[in-house]
């Protein structure tokens, strides 16, 4: 599971109000290389919850993301764009769990795939 995917998921247990972002528990993290496309990053930036992204990255000891991002950085700051790309797309949580911020319910991540299926009494 990439941090981009984490940024798009929320806890969908019925009745939960504090559903975002999931806390990430990581037992195994891998790194891959993905094609660097700055235009993709520029398009994704407005869709992301930056604070959730940065906080989650720091929880995984991935440093280097700024608190806020300026247009200038998105346009031409190569070092920033490289760091943004790497943390967004090249870090994969292979084993661990997503944890609902309200209920503490663990959704396991096995072989890179988070399991968000709900039990009958949760939907």
């Amino acid at each position: 599971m990439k941090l981009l995917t984490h940024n798009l998921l929320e806890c969908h247990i019925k009745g939960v109000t504090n559903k975002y972002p999931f806390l990430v528990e990581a037992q195994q993290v891998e790194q891959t290389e993905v094609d660097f496309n700055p235009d993709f990053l520029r398009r994704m930036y407005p869709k992301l919850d930056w604070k959730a992204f940065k906080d989650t990255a720091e929880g995984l000891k991935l440093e280097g993301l700024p608190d806020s991002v300026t247009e200038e950085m998105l346009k031409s700051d190569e070092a920033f764009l490289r760091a943004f790309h790497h943390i967004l797309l090249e870090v994969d949580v292979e084993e661990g769990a997503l944890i609902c911020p309200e209920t503490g319910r663990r959704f396991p991540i096995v072989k890179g795939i988070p399991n968000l299926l709900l039990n009958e009494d949760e939907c």
Partner: protein
Amino acid sequence: MKLKDLQSLLEDCKPFEDPKVELEQYTTRPHIASHILHAIDNSYEGFVGTTVVDLGCGCGALGVGAAILGAHVLGIDIDEDALAIAQENREEMNPWGEDEALSIDFVRANVLELSPGMRDRLKADVVITNPPFGTRAKGVDMEFLRVASGIATSAVYSLHKTSTRSYIQRHALKTLGFKKAQVVAELRYDLPKTYKFHKKACTDIAVDFWRFEVLSKQ
């Protein structure tokens, strides 16, 4: 990428090992998957730099194909056996081998349970889906389409039985609020004998490849 090159990559897509009848699991055959992806890539949105959600991705033929063509893809399926194969396909079908990974992730979830809040967060340029045709659970393909309509910002591409064409056209425009609904191609879907209740070794059914254009929301 040329159609024949794409098809040859998709030939390596590993199919379901033990298809589950209640989920109507049929592998999207390589020639169908490659035609669909090639049409989207060349005649419509194109894949480079776009985001794609593959609903009910199964073994990942469409999703992995879209990632090969340059999209960032999220594949969603309820079945863990299918997802395990999809993860293998993501590695095995990657034309760049060890040097570079495809930008694709998989999540295990019930497509029909994705809450409106989640659909909103998942927003993607394109949704592709080869849904269950609804022969076992009636109307499930329309439910997939409803969920897809809440995720796509540009278009939804989907396969449905040709016999339901006029109903789908009406439903897509009136109920789901798509701006346009058009059949891009009519395909012969060669279903090899997958389940015991299939009497013939191979049955051709007529399937429409649809494009549903999303009304842009300001």
